């Protein structure tokens, strides 16, 4: 804006000054013979851009109109003159700029345009407008003359003033300034002097001097100097003429006419001088161009590189000496032919086409081809060219150079070959491949790239179809600039790169290897669409939480299974399982087998009445808890204060062995907890499946254990042994607490004679093997005892048995048999510690008689026996050495302790005596041996009924009568009476009916003992042998009645007779 104001002011002032000068010189009322203002307007128009012309015109019009008014010219006339003075430069400037956009008067063409339009045509148009104003508006005559005067005056003004203004501008000044300035100053001074002499002193012969000076300036100093000198001369001449110097008088013309001539002459002179000057400039310029071309040629020829120049027609105009030397060619047939001769025939066509393609785009290019060297060898050269920058010409040909790149090319070719192989490879592998060419804008900036070649997978990887020969931005308009920038670096900086980058525009993520390839500006990409992989990686990260969760679950599962396995037994394992499921999986858990809840667990605040929940479970979404695993999420209907109501329920079947299934019920009642999901169910199912195996194995183990215990129990005597006259108690403490038995044993049984067999023994060793031997020994002793009442003899027989094939290695034993009626105990010891007898008074007797060596120790030892009579109420303590032998204590201490305890507890029950002995004597937990204690108290019958009678039926009623009488003194209730009479009757009836069938009447002995306990021991003996299975069948009803009503019904029959022994219990049905 400021510039436009400046233009306005400058133009207005200059125009006003020029116009005022003209008025000052020629106040004749006619047109001016020299009008400098015309040059101001024209020059101004030519110097400013077109859009500023209006400013120039406005300024000039303002000035013109003002000056005219000042000089008393009517407004109408002023308007007309102003119009003329505006149209004139506009027409001129328009035509000139059409011809030469920017005016350089040192160029002939420009000068011609300036003279023709600015000096001749423009002023003529203005002159006709002005003359019309002069004649039509002002009413004057002489239109032609006015036109002529205007034309000459304004033409001269345009010429000299315009030329000066245009010439003195900076770009027009020559470079070699100092010498030029001195010369210009001298010529300028001489011109002024000559003009002053001619017009001031009227020395007419000198009138040619300024002309000569003008010509000298034209040749020597160029247009600026000519313009300045010409202008100065014109001003001076005009001044002189205006002052009325009689110069023209001498020529015999009027001053006005003379001035006209003068101006024409001056104009012609200046124009000529300018023309000469322009011509000189042109020639100089050509000379300089030629000189620099020679200089280039010299440089090019001296350079090692091979340079070339083509013209606008693409014909080579120059090939450097280096090229000729390299190729050994000459220029015969022209440079083009010479070049074509040297290019490898296989490369010629390609090269030519690449060159023409680049030229058609007016782009720089680089082509490699094989060039024949002087020695005939073809060498790879890189031929690069760029458009020549020729002023004013759009097509000026190219200049370029060739460089031998053979060595490099060799490796490049190898690279290309390997690239070819790679391409083959890439087409068969899972990667995308493409070769691209970078596209740059006019500033050399990479803006896009073109796909030159792609492999099959390219389309798959990128989703781009038909990519070849299309650019990236055509295919992906929104392509992120980073791709182009990255590839531009690869293509132009020639360094490969590898990166991984996502393109939002493509919606894909690529792993890219980008490498530069020939030619320059190209690059190859090997890439993989890793979108899925990236997503997968993301998904992996996302799943890490899930994985952690799964790991937690796995740990949980492991924990549960470990703990469950650590528990012993089905129930303990089931309990552990449900305990561990709470609260991790559920708030309440229950384990149901059949209809029994065998285990349950609940979290704090959770309901614990499992039965109630199970009852109400049918209400939960109608689920069948015994159906296959299911998840039931129940709508929470409970009131807020009743948070205990389960809101979610899952059942899981659990197999705990073949054909044996249970159900695990899980509930959640915590309102904060989510309802069961299928993952919970899966966890529970997995747990149940594996825990089920553990439970099943526990069942098997328990079963095995049970079996083992039963087998072990079978090695021990029937603990149910009772006898009306003997209170019996026993304790068995195996050293190995995993077993119930060891090598020790005891036994108590009724012998056929009615005596009570009592045995205690000890097989050396512990554990199952000793237990097995013990069992064999015990059974042998029990069985053999039936055949002898002599304990020593029995031990001998047992010894014989023990040495047999199924025998033992070494054992000690005590055996005694007790007559319950007399209290006589016959006994023998085979290496065994002596039993202790304690009388009711507290007297103790160690039963040390009947001693012999242990079993299986020597051959056929003599085994004596001893006998002792037990006082009623006496306690007999039999034991194995485990009871009395303690580590670091003498066995005598053990015996003393045993005696002490026995005496102390002599009035206690046999059970308590056993307990005291075991707890007090084996209290220290270091018992390394099995311990057996067998304790009896002899309690003979308080009352006994005995009767011997002939075996005749009629005796039965008598017997019944006698028994009734005996019973009346005893405390025997009605039921026991009935039982006694009937069983006794049946026993005797049997004896009478069958015992003596073949031998005649014998005797039947009946003995009924009333024990302190109230039990009745009934014994019926005969000397016959009536009993047989066949008879039993016939007599079945009687025997059946005895077995039903009596306890411990025993019948022993041998050659000596039959003994029936039975106990009619008190209150026994």
């Amino acid at each position, binding site marked *: 804006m400021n510039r436009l104001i400046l233009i306005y002011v400058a133009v207005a002032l200059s125009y006003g000054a020029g116009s005022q000068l003209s008025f000052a010189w020629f106040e004749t009322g006619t047109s001016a013979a020299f009008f400098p203002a015309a040059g101001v307007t024209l020059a101004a128009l030519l110097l400013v851009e077109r859009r500023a012309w209006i400013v120039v015109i406005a300024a000039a019009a303002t000035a013109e109109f003002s000056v005219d008014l000042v000089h008393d010219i009517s407004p109408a006339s002023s308007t007309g003159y102003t119009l003329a003075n505006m149209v004139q430069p506009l027409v001129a400037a328009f035509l000139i700029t059409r011809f030469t956009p920017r005016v350089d008067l040192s160029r002939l063409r420009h000068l011609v345009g300036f003279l023709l339009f600015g000096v001749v045509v423009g002023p003529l148009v203005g002159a006709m407008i002005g003359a019309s104003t002069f004649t039509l508006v002002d009413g004057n005559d002489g239109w032609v003359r006015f036109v002529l005067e205007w034309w000459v005056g304004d033409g001269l003004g345009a010429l000299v003033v315009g030329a000066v203004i245009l010439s003195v501008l900076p770009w027009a000044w020559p470079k070699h300034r100092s010498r030029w300035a001195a010369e210009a100053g001298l010529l300028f001074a001489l011109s002024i002097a000559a003009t002053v002499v001619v017009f001031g002193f009227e020395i007419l012969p000198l009138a040619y001097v300024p002309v000569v000076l003008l010509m000298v300036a034209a040749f020597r100093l160029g247009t600026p100097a000519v313009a300045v000198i010409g202008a100065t001369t014109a001003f001076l001449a005009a001044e002189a003429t205006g002052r009325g110097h009689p110069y023209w008088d001498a020529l015999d013309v009027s001053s006005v006419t003379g001035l006209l001539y003068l101006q024409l002459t001056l104009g012609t002179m200046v124009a000529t001088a300018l023309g000469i000057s322009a011509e000189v400039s042109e020639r100089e310029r050509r000379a300089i161009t030629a000189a620099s071309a020679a200089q280039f040629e010299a440089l090019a020829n001296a350079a090692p590189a091979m340079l070339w120049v083509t013209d606008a027609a693409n014909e080579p105009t120059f090939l450097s000496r280096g090229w000729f030397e390299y190729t050994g060619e000459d220029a015969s047939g022209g440079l083009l032919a010479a070049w074509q001769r040297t290019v490898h025939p296989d490369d010629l066509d390609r090269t030519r086409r690449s060159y023409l393609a680049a030229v058609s785009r007016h782009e720089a290019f680089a082509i490699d081809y094989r060039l024949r060297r002087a020695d005939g060898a073809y060498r790879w050269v890189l031929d690069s060219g760029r458009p020549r920058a020729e002023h004013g010409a759009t097509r000026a040909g190219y200049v370029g150079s060739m460089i031998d790149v053979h060595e490099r090319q060799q490796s490049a070719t190898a690279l290309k070959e390997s690239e070819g192989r790679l391409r083959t490879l890439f087409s068969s592998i899972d990667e995308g491949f493409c070769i691209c060419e970078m596209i740059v804008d006019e500033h050399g900036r990479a803006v896009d790239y073109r796909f030159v070649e792609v492999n099959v997978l390219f389309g798959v990887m990128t989703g781009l179809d038909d990519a070849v020969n299309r650019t990236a931005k055509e295919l992906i308009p929104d392509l992120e600039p980073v791709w182009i920038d990255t590839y531009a670096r690869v293509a132009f900086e020639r360094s490969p790169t590898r990166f991984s980058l996502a393109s939002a525009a493509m919606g894909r993520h690529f792993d890219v290897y980008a490498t530069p390839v020939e030619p320059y500006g190209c690059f190859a990409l090997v890439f993989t669409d890793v979108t899925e992989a990236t997503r997968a990686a993301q998904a992996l990260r996302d799943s890490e939480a899930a994985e952690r969760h799964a790991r937690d679950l796995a740990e949980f599962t492991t924990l549960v299974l470990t703990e469950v396995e650590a528990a012993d037994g089905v129930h303990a394992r089931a309990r552990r399982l449900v305990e561990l499921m709470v609260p991790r999986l559920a708030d309440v858990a229950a384990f149901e087998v059949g209809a029994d809840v065998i285990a349950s667990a609940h979290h704090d605040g959770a309901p614990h009445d499992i039965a109630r929940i199970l009852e109400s479970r049918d209400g939960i979404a109608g689920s069948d808890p015994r159906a296959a695993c299911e998840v039931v999420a129940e709508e929470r209907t409970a009131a807020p204060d009743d948070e205990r109501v389960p809101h979610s329920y899952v059942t899981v079947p659990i197999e705990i062995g073949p054909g044996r299934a249970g159900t695990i019920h899980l509930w959640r009642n915590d309102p904060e907890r989510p309802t069961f999901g299928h993952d919970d169910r899966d966890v529970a199912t997995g747990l149940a499946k594996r825990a089920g195996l553990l439970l099943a194995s526990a069942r098997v183990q328990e079963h095995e254990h049970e079996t083992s215990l039963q087998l072990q129990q079978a090695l021990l005597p029937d603990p149910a042994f009772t006898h009306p006259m003997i209170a019996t108690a026993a304790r068995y403490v195996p050293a190995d607490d995993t077993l119930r038995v060891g090598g020790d044993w005891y036994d108590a049984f009724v012998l056929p004679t009615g005596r009570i067999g009592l045995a205690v023994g000890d097989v050396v060793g512990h554990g199952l093997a000793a237990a097995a031997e013990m069992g064999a020994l015990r059974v042998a002793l029990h069985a053999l005892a039936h055949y002898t009442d002599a304990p020593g003899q029995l031990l001998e027989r047992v010894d014989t048995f023990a040495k047999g094939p199924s025998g033992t290695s070494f054992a000690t034993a005590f055996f005694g048999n007790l007559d319950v009626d007399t209290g006589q105990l016959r006994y023998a010891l085979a290496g065994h510690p002596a039993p202790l007898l304690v009388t009711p008074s507290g007297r103790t007797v160690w039963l040390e008689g009947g001693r012999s060596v242990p079993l299986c120790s020597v051959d056929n030892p003599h085994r004596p026996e001893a006998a002792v009579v037990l006082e009623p109420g006496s306690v007999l303590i039999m034991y194995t050495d485990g009871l009395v032998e303690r580590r670091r204590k003498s066995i005598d201490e053990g015996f003393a302790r045993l005696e002490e305890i026995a005496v102390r507890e002599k009035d206690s029950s046999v059970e308590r005596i056993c307990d005291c002995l075991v707890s007090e004597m084996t209290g220290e937990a270091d018992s390394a041996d099995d311990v057996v204690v067998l304790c009896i108290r002899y309690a003979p019958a308080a009352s006994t009924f005995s009767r011997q009678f002939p075996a005749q*039926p*009629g005796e*039965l*009623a008598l017997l*019944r009568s006698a028994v009734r009488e005996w019973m009346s003194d005893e405390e025997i209730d009605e039921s026991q009476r*009935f039982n006694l*009479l*009937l069983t006794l*009757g*049946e026993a005797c*009836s049997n004896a*009478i*009916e069958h015992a003596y069938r073949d031998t005649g009447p014998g005797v039947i002995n009946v003995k009924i003992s009333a024990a302190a306990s109230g039990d009745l021991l009934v014994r019926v003996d005969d000397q016959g042998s009536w009993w047989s299975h066949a008879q039993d069948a016939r*007599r079945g*009803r*009687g025997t*059946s*009645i005895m077995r*039903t*009503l009596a306890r411990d019904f025993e019948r022993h029959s041998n050659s000596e007779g039959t003994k029936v022994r039975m106990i009619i219990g008190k209150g026994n049905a």
Partner: protein
Amino acid sequence: MTGPLAQVDLQRRGADAVVATLTGEIDGSNIGDVHAAVADGTKGVTKLVLVLTGLDYMDSQGLRWLVQLVVCERERTTIVAAPTSISARTISVAGLTASLGVVADVPEPAAPGDAHRD
């Protein structure tokens, strides 16, 4: 010996019914006599009611007789034994209460009182 051990009281109930009431004891020594007494006293009658409630003793020999009696003369024989009686308990011990068809009381139509009134 029979006399003191067991008594058989036969009472006619009309033309074809007899109520035999046994008291005392029955064992292998007198079972034959008891059988004979009952059999003789009930010849030709179509209904025999055997009342055992009063027995003081009866063993498996008595049971054996009862079984034979019921098996052979099932149509006419009814055994009566009060539940707490010795005979009833003996029968019960042998597990024969049901198979012998033991009833607790003498059936009404053949009540002993009726016979006397006849």
